[in-house]
């Protein structure tokens, strides 16, 4: 399990990385390498050149920008895990991050790397899709952005242009006062790819009415999806209503199937996990009122 030979170059900036990609269509960006390195070792991936962006320090940051949290592409997952800013302002990502690999892979793995590799079951992608994050990238035309609604297009396949280097992700922060989150995942071992996962964020108004609900499901289809259950918004504490809305919303998704989880399993458990994520998010939002 030794990779096929490749050249190696360190990019000085995202623009530099993009220019290097433009030079060679078989170039490939490496950041933390926690997804790419196994693929290199198995020779599933065989780039001609690796363009290392891990050291681009201006891409490593977590910034509070009022209505959004900006996270640089080369920010290590462990920094997100330990960030008090994330814990406070982006609790859904805070909850999800401990499900990403295990401590040693989070030490090297980056937020951008996870988004760029776009595994169907990746937790960071799921949170990005759920909250409708905007991904910023640099390509030949300069700085651009793309919403997660358009970004994910297949298993490990994204709409990112061939010469693009991901620069960061902006996760919207909700302005409502009472916002709760829920994150649920099933896997065989806690560090494995999720069979299915669900992330929910709910905002309640002063009367405990659901003002806003965001729900995302990962591992079910080829990529994580945001699921619209607004139909159940007024009955957010009614299990049957929420389950029904979820089931309807995911009816068109063709579930993945593999030896670890059948399509039926994924479809069925997606509803349960999504419901639980919503329930937990609502519960958490409710508790906030009392705490205030």
């Amino acid at each position, binding site marked *: 399990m030794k990779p096929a*030979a490749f050249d*190696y170059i360190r990019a000085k900036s995202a623009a530099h990385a993009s220019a290097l990609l433009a030079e060679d269509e078989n170039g490939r960006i490496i950041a933390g390498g926690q997804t790419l390195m196994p693929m290199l*070792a198995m020779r599933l991936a065989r780039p001609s050149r*690796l363009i*290392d962006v891990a050291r681009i320090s201006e891409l490593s940051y977590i910034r509070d920008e009022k209505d959004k949290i900006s996270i640089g592409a080369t920010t290590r997952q462990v920094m997100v895990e330990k960030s008090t800013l994330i814990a406070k302002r982006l609790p859904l990502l805070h909850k999800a991050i401990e499900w990403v690999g295990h*401590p*040693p892979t989070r*030490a*090297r793995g980056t937020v951008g790397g996870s988004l760029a590799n776009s595994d169907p079951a990746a937790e960071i992608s799921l949170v990005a899709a759920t909250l409708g994050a905007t991904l910023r990238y640099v390509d030949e035309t300069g700085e651009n952005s793309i919403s997660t609604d358009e970004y994910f297009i297949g298993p490990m396949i994204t709409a990112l242009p061939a010469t693009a280097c991901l620069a960061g992700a902006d996760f919207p922060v909700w302005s409502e006062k009472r916002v709760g989150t829920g994150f649920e995942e099933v896997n065989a071992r806690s560090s494995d790819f999720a069979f299915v996962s669900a992330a929910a964020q709910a905002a309640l108004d002063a009367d405990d009415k659901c003002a806003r609900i965001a729900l995302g499901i990962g591992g079910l289809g080829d990529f994580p999806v945001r699921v619209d259950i607004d139909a159940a918004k007024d009955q957010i504490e009614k299990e049957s209503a929420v389950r029904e809305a979820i089931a309807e919303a995911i009816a068109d998704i063709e579930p993945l199937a593999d030896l670890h989880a059948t399509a039926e399993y994924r479809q069925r458990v997606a509803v349960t996990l999504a419901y639980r994520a919503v329930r937990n998010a609502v519960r958490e939002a409710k508790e906030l009122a009392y705490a205030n």
Partner: protein
Amino acid sequence: MRTELKINGKSHVVDVEPRKSLLDCLREDLRLVGAHAGCEHGVCGACTVIVDGTPVRSCLMLAVQAEGSEVVTIEGIAPAPGELSILQDAFCETHGMQCGFCTPGMILAAHALLRDNQEPTREEIVEAISGNICRCTGYDQIIEAVALAARRMRGRNAPDQVSA
């Protein structure tokens, strides 16, 4: 590719192919063979080393990527030839191993935990070593070793508690 590596506090210059993992570089070019190849795809943790203070998989890192980082391997843990660190000694005390193949990675993972957390709970120990697969022990005596080392390290920092 000429690469300068800082391993266990010492600088080394190696000439490696870009495709060479840090693991293979440590083992083949520097003859530091305490990090072991178990799966070479990032699951088993036998290749764990500490890079810039954090345990990482040396099979999931290229040697050329390690330039400029501080790398600590199991060979850098014992205080002197024939002497063991408190943690290493605790592994011996509880027999936190059998075949010894996962042991260096396990000790480095625990080493990093104890540096940040002197009073880890069982759950925290489990989480810290959960990326290191041991096929022999069922983990019980490993967890016991880490807990014992934590107790002893706390004791060392507060000598009045162990004067008895």
